């Protein structure tokens, strides 16, 4: 491999180094590239949404296929911009699309998310505490006792009797283990981001390493 001659690769490498320069010290180049990144991301999101969804919905669905009923949600959606009007007779109209969003959001939570995020999680903790396999049995006991202990930690209605107050304490330790696992995975992920950039700089840009073995 050899050093890249592509302008795009050099530009990307320069941007990467500029962003990482912020680790050493806050500097104007870091700020500039950070702002470019935010701007490009926002611009890309807007253009992608218009190109991949809004434009084809209007040109193909409405005008070509004649699905004029799509105009109704589009018009209702546009009402949200009446919020910017200082005229009180107009700006209340932004509540109509908001009402739709709240209604749809509630319906989705009740019909889909509630089952997936709550019911399924509760039923997943209904585990047999006695099993022929001792490892599975220990696993199940840790799971059930762990869930009950963590729940008891957030029980504030009244103080638990003396014998039972070990549960909130145990729940706190269980949560600490959870936080440790979360931290470990965060480190793993952040190192991966750095690794990806180093592979790009050393491989695609400088040609020192082979990224494909």
């Amino acid at each position, binding site marked *: 491999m050899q050093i890249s001659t592509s302008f795009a690769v050099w530009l990307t490498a320069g941007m990467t180094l500029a962003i990482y320069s912020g*680790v*050493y010290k806050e500097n104007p180049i870091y700020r500039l590239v950070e702002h470019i990144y935010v701007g490009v*991301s926002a611009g*890309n*999101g807007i253009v*992608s*949404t218009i*190109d*991949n*969804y809004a*434009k*084809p*919905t209007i040109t*193909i*669905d409405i005008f070509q296929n004649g699905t004029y009923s799509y105009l109704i949600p589009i018009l209702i959606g546009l009402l949200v911009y009446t919020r910017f009007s200082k005229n009180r007779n107009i700006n209340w109209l932004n509540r109509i699309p908001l009402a739709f969003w709240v209604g*749809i959001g509630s319906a*989705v939570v009740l019909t*889909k*998310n509630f*089952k*997936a*995020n709550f019911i*399924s*999680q509760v*039923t*997943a903790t209904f585990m047999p505490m006695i099993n022929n396999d001792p490892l599975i049995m220990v696993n199940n006991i840790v*799971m059930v006792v762990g869930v009950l202990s963590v729940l008891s930690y957030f029980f504030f209605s009244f103080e638990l009797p003396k014998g039972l107050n070990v549960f909130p304490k145990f729940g706190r330790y269980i949560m600490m283990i*959870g936080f440790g*696992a*979360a931290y470990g*995975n*965060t*480190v*793993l*992920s*952040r*190192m*991966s*981001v*750095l*690794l*990806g950039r*180093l*592979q790009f700089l*050393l491989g695609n840009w400088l040609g*020192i*390493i*082979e*990224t*494909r*073995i």
Partner: protein
Amino acid sequence: MSFWEKLSKMDNRIIYTALLVIMIWALIWPMGLPIQIGTSAKAAYETFDSFESGDILYVSFDYDSAGATDIQSSIEACMRLVLKNGGRVVSGALWPIGAQQANYAFKKMQEEYPHLVEGVDFLNLGYKPGGQMYIEKAMDSLIEACANVDNEGRNLSQFPIMKDLVTLKDAKVVICGNHGSPGASEWVPMYATAYAIPNNKPFVVAASAVNATINAPFIQSGQITVYLNGIRAGAEMELLTEKKGTAVSGMDAQSLSHILVFVLMILGNVSYFMQKRESRKQ
């Protein structure tokens, strides 16, 4: 100032430099540390190796370039297995940059399998906004959910592959590349819990490691059937598919960086207790 006090007040930049030196060293002179294949990677391999000619895999690229190092290798390995067995791949994206990541993956697949024809063997539907609403609509009609167009703005009805993928239910497996929201947290209620799991279909998630604790309850409850966690899973999948790439080549650097963090954490704790002891003595 004692040694332990100096250590606890060490400049962050020394740590960054040490990290950089270690990782660059491991990338230029790899040591070939052993990588053991875990049960998740084996399960993923079995899932995608079961694809037969004509079966369709739907890949949702719900991540950007920041999550790519963690996720892209796993996704590409899964796509490689499916295409090797004569299967087909259709991709979508709930993140705008996801469409670009899909293009990178398909470009690589076309280099490996030059006979692949766009629209027949694979297709990139591109970024589609809406998150949960997109998935809900795609369960009824994928073409309508995509507003009739693919990533390049071409009419979807002209592609033969779309005739066999009318709804998401027609895909043999759905895999979500997850780096945040929208991602697995949207796919689990709208697809996995509502359709895949009751119909004994697998739901695969390849996620960046930072999402592991968020997704863990869904793995335990069986709503995510196969979970590929971070670059480690990518390296395992690359080994299983016998196509070593960026994940395998980066594992040494990844492992050494973890050892450094581990050592620093121990030193930090020792320093804390030693300072406490010294202050008690004084």
